[in-house]
């Protein structure tokens, strides 16, 4: 299983993967440092799950989400948003765009377990 992690913070990319490995040790983790790189990697790798920040230089998470859903609206690929933005407008917006789950930062072991359950389809 391929999991794509898109976040402009190197520290956060490392933390996300560190926590997720406990629950999904067999997964192959791919990382992107901004939205544009994330979109290119998504097209190339077609990951089963994508974890993505929203506020990033260049393409925002919302824009990448629109591109992914525009390419394959009915795709089974899971898009999980991991953001510091706690606004209900933001949550509504990305859920409407087709995000599978929205989780607020900071990441923790408990939140990683939730994400792993979503990815595994539990």
């Amino acid at each position, binding site marked *: 299983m391929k999991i794509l992690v898109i976040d*402009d913070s190197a520290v*956060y990319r490392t933390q996300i993967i560190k926590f997720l490995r406990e629950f999904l040790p067999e997964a192959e983790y791919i990382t992107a440092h901004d939205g544009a790189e994330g979109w290119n990697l998504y097209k190339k790798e077609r990951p089963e799950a994508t974890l993505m920040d929203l506020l990033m230089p260049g393409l925002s998470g919302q824009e990448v989400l629109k591109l992914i859903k525009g390419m394959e609206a009915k795709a089974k690929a899971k898009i999980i948003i991991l953001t*510091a933005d706690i606004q209900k407008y933001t949550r509504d917006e990305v859920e409407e765009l087709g995000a599978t789950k929205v989780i607020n930062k*900071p990441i923790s072991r408990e939140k990683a377990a939730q994400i792993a359950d979503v990815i595994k389809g539990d």
Partner: protein
Amino acid sequence: MPMLLRGIEMLSSLQRDALKEFMNVSFGQAASLLSEMAGQKIKLTIPEIELSHISLLGKKIEDEPFANIFKGHIVSSSLAFGNELKGKAQLVFPVKEGKILVSLFMGDEIPLEDDGFMDFSDTDIDAMKEIGNIMLNTIVGSFANLLDKQIIYSLPEVEFFHYPDHQPKFPHETGHYILLIRTTFSLVKTKIEGVVFVVLTMDSISILIKKIDEMLVELYG
């Protein structure tokens, strides 16, 4: 949590009370997240909120409550926002304490004085940006949620400066009022003191006060 408010003569006692309660919730959430990030229990000491004109900020930084923070090398993580609410939020720490906080966030050993306290690597800056991003989003985002307004954030920024040679930048447009919030975080092993500034435009503050009035009418009729 007790809360001190100064310089808010434009608000009635009921409005002030409602604002205090609202700030208690926002700060409680932000402190809880900081506790998660630092992996330690954090005691939030008496926060202060002050509403005043931006032109007075320079003097306020020199006031007693801020003198300990604004002394020598300082690191700041900030987040500007616009759309229906406009302003800037800024988290400021002395560099030494910022470095300790970053070490806690990344699960590293707390650095010793001799280890080069002032040296922030790219990774440290990245971590400081995330700490500010998460804490400031919590405070500003709760404003937006309370007011039922949508805000759009700019990318978070980390800056270093030496006070008083260089001073933090704030929006200086006419009519800007500053909602000045000072917090002191006490950690179990060490004490980290920081300041949170939230700068709102006058329009945004008016929206905040109007919403508080609506809540009071709903409550008291």
